[in-house]
């Protein structure tokens, strides 16, 4: 029992559901299906609170992926999935099989995958282990996506000590399907045959789901045989064959075998369809000899699918698979009732009510407790920070922070042009792909800020939703759907559970306000090593619709002499900023405030401005604040510089936090004001550029939308010149700044 990760009270429940003692195989089924990874037993009560409906929702949570209507009879099918634990153990294969898994979720729905994004977290690149994991993960993401021919078009990468023992690898896949072409993972029609197709089943990955549901400790090394090797060629064959076979109409239900393998596919398809399923493991193609039913049912070998086929049309299905050199075999059939029966050469070896494994899995309302340190880390006293650096040296230093630097080193290894749909090159904005055969396009972004969530998980999660949606809007996309990946520590600790609960509450709140239904997601818990958890890290994926794919824009300035306009308010909020972390070594304060109605207004505004062709560039302000945002607008622009003068933000001294009148009076405080103006990370801000008559239209539209618009300067020259309150505080040649920013990660990775 212990070995199966089943708790005594859960065992009692199994006895009740079974009406008898389970045998070893049955216990194994419960073990994987009731694991955190498969059952969402700790998170389910919280996930239920998320908004999942909307006029565009074609498929909400519960299927292999979600889907939203994008017009023309089509829908966007997308989901995000994590492969954190496997990527720590074997970075290349862990990441590669993670990509393989999420691609299967998409084509299983009948959708052709057209884009991948990845959200990654690693420890500091100063550590050789972090560099090795980063190198392996990026190679693995590319290795799988490149071969199968799905472009990796965007993502985000954050480096922080907090992830050194628990890197995060979250991958989002987006596909397109006809709305009437969606196929579900449910068994239909008693008597219909159940087919298995794809790679043979081996002993790899047995209990992978259970492993992803436990903390790492010294004995993790012994669990290593759980590593799986990806076979992108097999997946390519499966993808093409499955998409082709689904067009015949002979496939009634289909599901991939991911976590918990055959156990999951058989019990979930049965319970979704309200029917039973009987299979004989003898028919399951096996890669190794002497495999037991236990091993066959629990194996997590990659690249395998289970299909329910309409009786009498088997040959149509097998013919397509044969064309692709795949051999589909019948392993069982759909039966009346609701039991999953497993036979071995005709002998019954397991007999379980399938809903006991799925819908009736335990649900925990685990105790939640705000961490004792929570209030303390939110205190931010300027007096405690020491002498602030000059704005120029802070600017120079921030350009060398890998989290801020260009991610070219990574996406240069990803094929992002295959498929001929990629409109925005990676690194330029949210990813934008066109939808062939229509005028439309889709913008996608993945975002999350673990530091903000550590300081305040509720607000941090709202900020993640806002940022992902704002990024999509900055590319001209109207946000229409979202997915989320919840990466947290051990849910059995009340503080972690509190973080999770607060984060989900924040996601729900922000999604409701911004009109973004959540159509699916993934939960990855136990991301901790020896009792130290990662920052709570919800990652949000948002999909936006461009009615006209040609009406999009990127962050880079397009011409000299354009006006530079800041949309939104510059509040100078330093809490949780990259500036504080890098230059003062502090993760503290309140994360930026977020007024959701203002956020909604600015997003609507920017989408309209781009649709009307009024702005030449648009860039969301995030890590590094306005200063880094402005610098990034000059990068990849062919050297178009910028000169701005920003109204100075006055930080209010907070004596309750220990700021003294002396601090306020001293020059200290004045430098902090300047730095807060430049590097504060307030939400709901966008920098745009516009020229001539368009500028007036931009200002007028902003006014009508109730969004503050300030002309802060002009493009031109070959320098980045930033003034605050009339005083020039940053003055750098673009060429120098861009070189440092573009090669930072390369340089770090050159070290051994």
């Amino acid at each position: 029992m212990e070995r199966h990760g089943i708790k005594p009270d859960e065992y009692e429940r199994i006895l009740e559901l079974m009406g008898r003692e389970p045998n070893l195989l049955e216990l194994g089924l419960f073990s994987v299906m009731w694991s955190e990874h498969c059952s969402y037993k700790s998170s389910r009560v919280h996930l239920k609170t998320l908004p999942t409906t909307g006029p565009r929702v074609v498929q909400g949570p519960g299927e292999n992926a979600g889907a939203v209507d994008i017009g023309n009879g089509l829908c966007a099918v997308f989901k995000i999935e994590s492969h954190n634990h496997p990527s720590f153990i074997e970075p290349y294969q862990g990441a590669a099989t993670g990509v393989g898994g999420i691609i299967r979720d998409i084509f299983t729905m009948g959708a052709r995958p057209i884009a991948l994004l990845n959200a990654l977290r690693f420890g500091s690149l100063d550590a050789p282990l972090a560099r090795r994991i980063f190198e392996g993960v990026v190679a693995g993401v590319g290795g799988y996506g490149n071969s199968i021919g799905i472009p990796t078009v965007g993502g985000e990468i954050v480096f922080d000590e907090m992830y050194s023992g628990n890197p995060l690898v979250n991958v989002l896949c987006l596909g397109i399907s006809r709305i009437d072409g969606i196929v579900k993972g449910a068994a239909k029609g008693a008597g219909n045959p159940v087919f298995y197709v794809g790679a043979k089943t081996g002993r790899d990955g047995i209990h992978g789901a259970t492993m992803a549901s436990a903390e790492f400790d010294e004995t993790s090394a012994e669990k290593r045989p759980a590593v799986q090797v990806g076979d992108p060629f097999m997946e390519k064959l499966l993808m093409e064959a499955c998409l082709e076979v689904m067009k015949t109409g002979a496939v009634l239900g289909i599901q991939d075998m991911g976590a918990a393998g055959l156990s999951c596919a058989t019990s979930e398809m049965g319970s979704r369809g309200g029917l039973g399923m009987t299979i004989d493991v003898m028919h399951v193609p096996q890669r190794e000899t002497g495999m037991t039913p236990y091993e066959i049912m629990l194996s997590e070998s990659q690249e395998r699918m289970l299909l329910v086929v309409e009786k009498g049309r088997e040959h149509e299905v097998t013919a397509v698979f044969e064309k692709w050199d795949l051999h589909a075999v019948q392993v069982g059939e759909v039966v009346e009732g609701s039991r999953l029966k497993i036979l071995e050469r005709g002998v019954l070896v397991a007999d379980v009510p399938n809903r006991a494994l799925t819908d009736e899995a335990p649900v925990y309302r685990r105790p939640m407790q705000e961490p004792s340190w929570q209030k303390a880390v939110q205190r931010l006293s300027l007096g405690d920070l020491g002498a602030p650096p000059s704005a120029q040296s802070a600017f120079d230093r921030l350009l060398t922070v890998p989290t801020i630097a260009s991610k070219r080193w990574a996406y240069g290894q990803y094929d992002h042009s295959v498929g001929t749909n990629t409109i925005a090159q990676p690194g330029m904005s949210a990813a934008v792909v066109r939808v062939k055969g229509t005028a439309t396009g889709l913008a996608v972004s993945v975002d999350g800020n673990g530091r903000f969530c550590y300081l305040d998980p509720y607000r941090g999660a709202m900020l993640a939703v806002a940022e992902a949606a704002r990024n999509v809007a900055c590319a001209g996309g109207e946000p229409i759907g979202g997915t989320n990946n919840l990466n947290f520590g051990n849910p059995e600790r009340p503080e972690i559970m509190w973080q999770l609960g607060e984060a989900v509450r924040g996601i729900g709140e922000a999604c409701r306000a911004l009109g973004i239904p959540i159509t699916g997601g993934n939960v990855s818990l136990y991301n901790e090593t020896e009792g130290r958890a990662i920052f709570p890290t919800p990652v949000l994926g948002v999909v936006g619709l461009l009615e006209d794919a040609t009406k999009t824009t990127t962050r880079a300035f397009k011409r000299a002499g354009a006006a530079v306009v800041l949309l939104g308010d510059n509040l100078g909020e330093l809490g949780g900023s990259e500036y504080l972390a890098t230059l003062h070594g502090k993760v503290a304060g309140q994360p930026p405030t977020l007024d959701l109605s203002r956020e909604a207004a600015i997003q609507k505004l920017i989408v309209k401005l781009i649709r009307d062709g009024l702005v030449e560039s648009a860039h969301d302000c995030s890590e590094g604040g306005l200063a880094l945002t402005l610098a990034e607008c000059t990068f990849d622009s062919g050297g178009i510089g910028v000169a701005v003068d920003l109204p100075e933000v006055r930080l209010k001294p907070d004596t309750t936090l220990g700021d003294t009148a002396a601090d306020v009076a001293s020059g200290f405080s004045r430098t902090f004001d300047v730095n807060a103006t430049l590097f504060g990370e307030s939400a709901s801000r966008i920098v745009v550029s516009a020229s001539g008559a368009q500028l007036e239209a931009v200002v007028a539209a902003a006014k009508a939308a109730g969004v503050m618009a300030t002309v802060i300067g002009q493009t031109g020259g070959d320098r980045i010149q930033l003034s605050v309150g009339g005083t020039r505080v940053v003055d750098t040649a673009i060429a120098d700044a861009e070189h440092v920013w573009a090669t930072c990660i390369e340089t770090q990775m050159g070290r051994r």
Partner: protein
Amino acid sequence: MKFAVVVFPGSNSDHDAFYAASEVIGEDAALVWHKDTDLQGADVVILPGGFAHGDYLRTGAIARFSPIMSAVKAFADRGGPVLGICNGFQVLLEAGLLPGAMVRNDRIKFVSRLVPVRVEQTDTPFTAACASTQVLHMPVAHGEGNYYADPDTLAEIEAHRQVVFRYSNAAGEVSPASNPNGSLNSIAGICNRQRNVVGLMPHPERATEAQLGSADGRVILASAVKSLASLAGR
């Protein structure tokens, strides 16, 4: 005129080439399955990019045994224009339709970016519409594009003006700095001695619309149309 795009099971740029030929250039195009033995009366054959058979062994190593390759060989022997793009180029090398071989990129990693390429020869069916030394911006996306031939073969290729494309900078200058993969002599593409079979690592089919970053690759497909038209007119 009609393009045939060969589909190996692991091809992933087959539909891109098909789309460029049919939707962008507006010519007839057909997808031809690798187990077929007939090119459906095509005037031009494209071997597209991808990982024909997973290519875990060597790129293009298994594809050369596909039934369709006999038809492609016969077509090439008759002087028919054949274009191998990326993996298609690798298949042509393995099949012996072009000289040399590919090894891993010199910096090992997969390289994916838009690169400038200088057109060296305009007397092939795929460069006939190019200006001499014209620079084209096209994406590369490969892990094994490091062209190798033994010194004698290399000298012969150069002597017979078989180097059709070289990696260069935007001004058309060729130097190691603008070589993305370590290819000998900065070779990005070559042709056979008869000049009708051309292989290149960059992807012209992915560079046929400005919206996608470059339309420079269009001239390669347009060249095929032009040279066939002039053949027909002769």
